[in-house]
Structure formats: C-alpha cells, structure tokens
C-alpha cells in the first residue's frame, strides 16, 4: 500500500512523515512520532485512553485516521505540561490520587484540559459528565473529582496572584 507524505501539527509543532492511509492517529503518534503518552486500552473505541484534542475538542486517536487529521491542531498529553513544569491539573492528579496505575491518565488529562478550556468553573455534575467517556479501572473516579476541583482552585489562586 502506498504511503502518503503528510504533515501533522502536534503540540504546536509540524511534523512531516510517511503514513499509510489506513494508519490510525494513535499508531502514528505512538509508532512514528514516538509520543507514547496516548494509550491503547481497547479495540472498540470505548475506553478513552487514547483521547487527544483535535482543534480543541477531545476525540479518540484510535478511531481517527492519521491522514485525515492533516491541517488540524492535535494536542496530546505530552503537550499539557506548561514550560516544563506540571500543569495544575497534573499536579492535582498526583496529589489527590487521581492517577493510580496511570494508564487511563493521559486520556483524563485531555478530557479535563478540554473541559476547563471550555468551562473554567464547571459544576460537579459537569465534571462528572465530562469524565464519563473515559474508563478508569483503579480509582472509582472519586479522587479525580477532588483533583479537578483542586486544580480549578489552584488556577483561580494563580490568576488572582497575577
């Protein structure tokens, strides 16, 4: 099968590479770009471990064709940290036990990141809804809510300090 030469914009950087038409975005990220942060948890588009942001909306990298994402902005978990330091949500997930084994965490980082971009002060219900497309098998989600709330508080405090 002939490969296509494509350019993807990942975490603010353009990368050019040869890609088979049937390659998923997840495989392109993990195998070609060596960005292994996005995880593969299932084969039926149902777990959310591969969630990335496409033009600001969370989507499943395992269910997108890489070549079809040309021209779109792709954000992966590797792009969440700010200036080499943990973003508030990353720090909070660590402190509040939001990540145990951590395999689902990249997907949640993206889901929460998008939520807070679109709605900086979500209600408990909105947080729960925003997380409901990602499966976690370790935490029972409870501590994640605390982490998200802590991150929101930290962000607010940070903004006040500015």
């Amino acid at each position: 099968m002939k490969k296509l030469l494509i350019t993807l914009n990942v975490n603010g950087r353009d990368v050019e590479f040869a890609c088979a038409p049937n390659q998923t975005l997840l495989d392109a990220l993990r195998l070609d770009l060596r960005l292994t942060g996005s995880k593969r948890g299932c084969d039926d588009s149902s777990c959310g471990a591969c969630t990335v942001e496409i033009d600001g909306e969370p989507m499943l990298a395992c269910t997108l064709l890489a070549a079809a994402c040309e021209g779109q902005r792709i954000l992966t978990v590797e792009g969440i940290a700010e200036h080499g330091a943990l973003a508030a949500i990353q720090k909070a997930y660590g402190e509040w036990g939001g990540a145990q084994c951590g395999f689902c965490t990249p997907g949640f980082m993206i889901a929460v990141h998008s939520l807070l971009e679109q709605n900086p002060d979500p209600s408990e219900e909105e947080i729960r809804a925003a997380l409901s497309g990602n499966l976690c098998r370790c935490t029972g989600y409870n501590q994640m809510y605390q982490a998200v709330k802590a991150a929101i508080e930290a962000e607010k405090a940070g903004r006040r300090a500015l």
Partner: protein
Amino acid sequence: MNEFSVIGKPVALVDSAGKTTGQGKYTDDLSMPGMLIGKILHSPLPHARIVGIDASRALALDGVVAVAVGADAPNKYGILPVGHDETALAVDKVRYVGDNVACVVAESEAIAEKALELVDVRYEPLPAWFDPEDSMRAETDLLHEQRPHNIEKEYHHAFGDPAAGFAQADTVIEGRYIANEVTHAAMEPHSTLAAFEIDPQTGRPGRLTVWSSTQVPYYLQHKLSIVLEMPMSQIRVIKPLVGGGFGGKSEVIPLEIIAAVAAREARAPVKITYTREEVFWAHRGRPRTIVDLKTGVTRDGKITAVAAKVIQDGGAYCSYGVVTILYAGALLGGALYQIPNFQYDGYRVLTNKPACGAMRGHGTVNVRFAFEAQLDEAAQRIGMDPVEIRRRNLLVPPCVTVNGLRVGSYGLPECIARVAERSGWSERKGKLPRGRGLGIACSHYVSGAANSIIRSDMPHSTVNIKIDRDGGVVVYTGASDIGQGSDTMVAQIAAETLGCSLGRVRVVAADTDLTPIDIGSYSSRVTFMNGNATLRAAQAVKRQIAEAAAKRMNSTPEDVIMRGDRVWNHGAYGDEGPGAVEETATIAASGRVEGQILRGSVQQKRAEECPKDRMTFEEAVVAAIDFHGALGGSGSYAPPVEARGGHYKGSGVGPSPAYSYSAQVAEVSVDEETGVVTVHKIWAAHDCGRALNPVAVEGQVIGSVWMGLGQALEEELVWKDGLLMNPGLLEYRSPSAAESPEIECIIVESVDPEGPFGAKEASEGSLAAAIPAIANAIHDAVGIRLREAPFTPERVLAALRAQRPEAKKVRLAGNVDPARPATFREHGGSLCHGGRGPARHPLDPAVRRKSAAGSASKREDDAR
C-alpha cells in the same frame, strides 16, 4: 510534635508525574532496534486435538520472520507447582476458544495479522464441557487426562462439630447463591518484550531480558527458566510501569512465555501486546461460582455453624485454582467472625473456557457475598438489626480460629461502629421510604499469604539499601508497583526510618538483575512484607549511621535522633531537635556541599567546625562511611511460624500474618417499575493497621469498593457454549463515571504489632463487602433477596415481579430465577442450528444427551 514525619501524610505517588505527563513508560511504549511484532493464533474451538499445523503459507508472506508452535517449547508450566498443566503454545490439544496455537513473528502488526490467516491448523473436535456441574460428571473426553471428572481439586474440611452446631441453632437458613464470572479488565492490555543478548564468549544468543506487564517478575523468571530450559541467572525480568493488574498479571500469562519463545525462534527482539479481546481470552479472573450455603444461628444472634459447598468454574487450566478454592473455604470460615463449627466442601472444576485465576479479593468475594446476604436473612428471621448480629459474632483476639488462622489486630468492631455512625444507620435504617434502603456487610482479607506458592522457609521479601557520600538513598526492592503505590510506600518507610526527606529516596524496583527477590504483588502482601523488609534494611543502615554520629557527638547511638534530614543528640536538643531557623540555614549550606561529591577537606572541616551535637543527614552519612567503610543495609521478611496455619490438607492457604477488616453500608434506591438499582453512596470503613499514605489508602479502598460495585451491578462475562459474548470494554461493562457513586472511605487504624509501623493491607479487603452490602440494601428497599449477582435490572425486576403473584408471568431474567438460582445462565440464541454451525456443537454434552450419536466423520469435516 507528630510521631512521624513522612508516613501518615498524604503524598503524591513517587511516579505520578510520569503518569500525568505521559512520559512514564509501560511495556507497550518500549521498542528497540530490530524489534519484531508477535501475534498469536488462537483456537476457534473449545476442545480439539491438533492434527497438524502447516505454517508454510504464512512463512512465505513477505515480512514474516518466524512462526512458533507448541513443539518449539513443550515444557509444561503453571503458576502453582501442583498445577503445571500449560504449555507456551498448545502441544496436542486446545482447551478453550482462544487457546494459544501458534505465534507469528513479523515486521509489523499488520503483516503478522495477515499471516495469522495463513497458518493452517487441522483440528479434530472433541466434546466440550461448559457447565461445571455437567463437567464434574464427565467420564470421558476429559480436559486433562490426569484429572478424573474434570475436577482440578476438591477439599472436604470439617472444623468443630458442624452437625452439633446446627442442632444448637434456633434457626437454620439454606440457599444457593450464584455469582457470575467477572474479570480484571485492567486498562493496560498485557504486553511483553523479549530480547536475547549475544554472549560474548560463545557468540551465540545468551542472556534473555524480558520487559513485561507483570505483578510477579520473579515467578515469570522462574517459569521462563522452566520452559526455555535456561538457568534463572541468565534471565532478567524487568517490570516497567504496569497499567493495573488486579490479579490478572499475578501469574505467568501465555504471551509472556510466547514472546520469549518467539524471540528465540526469530532471533530478534519480539514484542507482543494483547488486543483487548485477547486479554479476555487470557482472563484468569474470578470464576463463576455456585455457593450452597447453610448458616445456623441462635435466637440471640450467635452463629452456631456454617456449612458451604462451593463449586468454582475454573476454566481450562489450573492457574491459581487450587489456591482460589482453598481461600474460599479458609476465609469464609475464618478470621472475620466467630464461627465455632464449620464445614467446607470445595470443588475446583475444569471446563472448556478460559482459565480463571486470581482477582482482587482472591477467593473470598463470592462466598462473602453469599454469607453476608444470608446473615442478613438470619437477622431478619430472628428480628435482629443487621449491625447487631454482626456485633454478636465478633472474634476476641488475639486468637486462633477453628481452621487455624491466627488473628491479632482486629479493627472490625470499630469499622462497624464508624460506618454505622457515618451512614446514620440507627436513625435511618428501616425508616426510609419504600424503594430506598440501607444495607451493611463486612469483609476481610489477608495481608499477604503466610505461605508462598513454592513452600519454603526462605524470606518472601528482601530489600537492599545503598547510601553513598552524596547522601542519596537508593532502595532496591523487588516489589512490583502496579499502580497501587508500592514504590511510594517503600520510599516512605525508608525515609521515615532513616529520618530523611522523601525526595532523597530513589526506589529501584522489580528488576531481577538489580533487586533482591520479592515474590510479587498479590495477596495484598507488599506493604506488610516488603514494607517490613524495607523497614529492616533501613534500620540496619540507620544503626550504622547512628553509631558513627554518636561517635562524633560523644554520645550513644540510642541518643542519636534522625529526623527531617537532621541528625542530633537527644541529650542536647531533646525530642524537637535544633530550632527551625538554624535548621534551614544548615540544610541550605549542606545542600551546596552535597552537590560536590567532595569527601575531602572542605567537608571534613565543616564537620569539625560544626557543633558536635547536630549534623546534617549527609554529614552523618559521610561520617558513617568514614567509620564503617561501605554503607548499606539489607532486610528481609518471612512470616512468623505461628502465623502459618494448621496442619491439615490445604491448611497452607488462608493464614496470614495479619488481616485487614472492612465494614460497609450502601444506600440504594430501586425503581420498582424498571428494576434499576441506583447506589447513592457507600460508606466504607477499612482497618489497614496504619495508613502510611492516607491518600493512597483511600484510593485503594475506594477503588476496591467500586470494583465490588461493578460486580454487584453491571459486570459479567456472558457465555454461550464456551464462547464469550462480550470480549470487549463496550459490552463488558466496567462502570463509567456517570453512574459511579460517592464512596466515603473511613480509615480505621488498629496498628498491627507486626506490620511496618503497624500497617496492613488496604487494596483488597474492601471489595467483597460491597456486593452483599448492596444486596442487603436492595432487600431493605424493596424486600427482595437476590441470590444471583450481578443485580442487573432484569434480575431485579424479575424478583420484584415474582413477589407480586398478580403480575403477568414473563421470564424477564431468562431461565434462571435470580432469587432462587439453580444454575448458570447462558446467553440466548444458538451456535449449532441444523448442523451447519461449527462442528463442536453437535458434540456438546447438552446436545449429545438429546440426539444419539451423530455422524462423527461429518463433524470432523465441518471443523476444517
């Protein structure tokens, strides 16, 4: 001042940044130059003899490097020494749909998948056994010739005098309980990367390194050595980050062996990562279980006797089966309540389904569901509050139970009191409107099995600590962190013991070349056993440092206090140590010196100038190196002989140096028109001895209660004649955030005399109680007793309708009455219509019973 400076405080897991940034590496994230991809061909038949395998068409495909088959590595292995019944790839027979037949190694996943289609396997189908009670009657076509009636193992235990016990009872309750099969569904699918190194002496493939998503690196090393016929010393197993295990990675999973065999055949590094479907086929989860339970109680709520017959549908291989069936008996009868007379008949049965093994709450969960639900019924019969009946049957520790379990610390009474209080039990129970209810249940679990799988007197855990003149503490531990936070636990214990900050400690874990043996992350043993080994190693180092510091301080080692990166003479500064201002100044200064690995004049001068009565941590370390030469320490842990159990057949499983305890109250509401159960909240009090890291303990407790909730309401493997109808995360329903309730964790600290700083397990003990707590709450809400789990809406509605004689009779729950289940429910539909289905079906025992011998030859043809 707080008794401790590091433990008891919530800290982020030491590896959490790697997880939240995506930088942390799990096995499938690894790759190496020249690495090939392996894909496994699985059996389409539940039971068949392999007549021949022809891989030539696959090998002819461009990009295919090798095809491994059973004959390439025929040695048998199994996690238990008594259960060596697996081979890397099937040698003569396949025993379940999904059994491993061949492994294709190719340059890419896509090529390997294509090649799988080109491996030609000829099978001769055999009659298959799907229902354990059917299977137990088998005379022919056994799964394993050495197991008559397809019974892997049976045990018959009687403790006390069960008959007399039942005679004393005022009321005896009997019932059959059925728990359907559930699986770990860890988010990370299993993955293994195996690579051989060229031996410089022989020039041929020599040492093997295996990176694998495992909870038990040392068992993997051991089994690899058996199958590959290599000395263990030539095999290195490294555990990268593991994306959850829950028992599913606590034994050697076929791909781990197959990857190594494939790497040997392909002469190149090979990585195999399971698809999600393959994870379901590899399974090793909680077997579907029949529990025939009988409990006798007196009018004043005392349990006089318990008798249980337990049948576990173990699937095609032994796996942990013998242990599972023993745990079920040991923990049903012992260490939770006072049960004076106890009879247990346990059967572990082989069937043509994927093997079951260990899963969180190993062995206890399904029997605990039955028992706690029945106890609730008993309380109702004698008109006693469910909390009260549990209080009436508490143990009086320290004690040894009738089945030989030694119980020391026992926080159950407090757990019960705390959940009752937090949930408003006495004010609210029985007073909620119809449709809403409260239920209570208790559970417990071992803090590590007192006897290892391979019985010996060797330590179960050993830990080494190295400190060099940089003042950095490196802990080498075999403990396998699978997300539960054991690396953090080890770091905390080392830091607390050595009186240094957590950031100073680096943990090197689970690498058989670097770290001393720890038998693995299972049976909730790590905090207790590896924690104790770490404690001892750290104490050994601390002694050396204290000795040297004492010399400098003209004091005695006992008078040297080490805390918060400071070392001081108790005689001079008392408990609190030097003032806080001084302290920061010293640390800042020492930080600079620390950076230069100078062990020369500068530091020595400083040391001399420094007031004699206090030092920084690194000054003390340097002093110790000066004094002793090398600085390092080891510690190990083996459970005490008194905790290792009784002397009957099967007594080795169940004993533990300490037990964790849990009491839970669930609040539910039931929609009587739809049968939908909503869990509003669960209060879970867990006695973990001491919470070394409260946030981690809460996470473990909440996680296990939540997993119990999944088994209670949503999760079940749905079978049709050995075919798994829901091998994926879409149809196997692990709860989503949308319906996962709030779980309030209440930590109870009984401070175990033998646990590290008093700690016991926290990750498993709470799972089991969730299921009966919900069952009992459903009863409280709407008056039905469900004896089949999970309590899916159809089952709940079926039971509700059965209560109302005027309701229209509809078989809402299929052929099994969830209030009185007799047998397992299978998915509807048909696999074998008109003989046109797969050949195995006319041979199914069920079908054979109806139709007399068919045309055997035709069946064989059909199978091809």
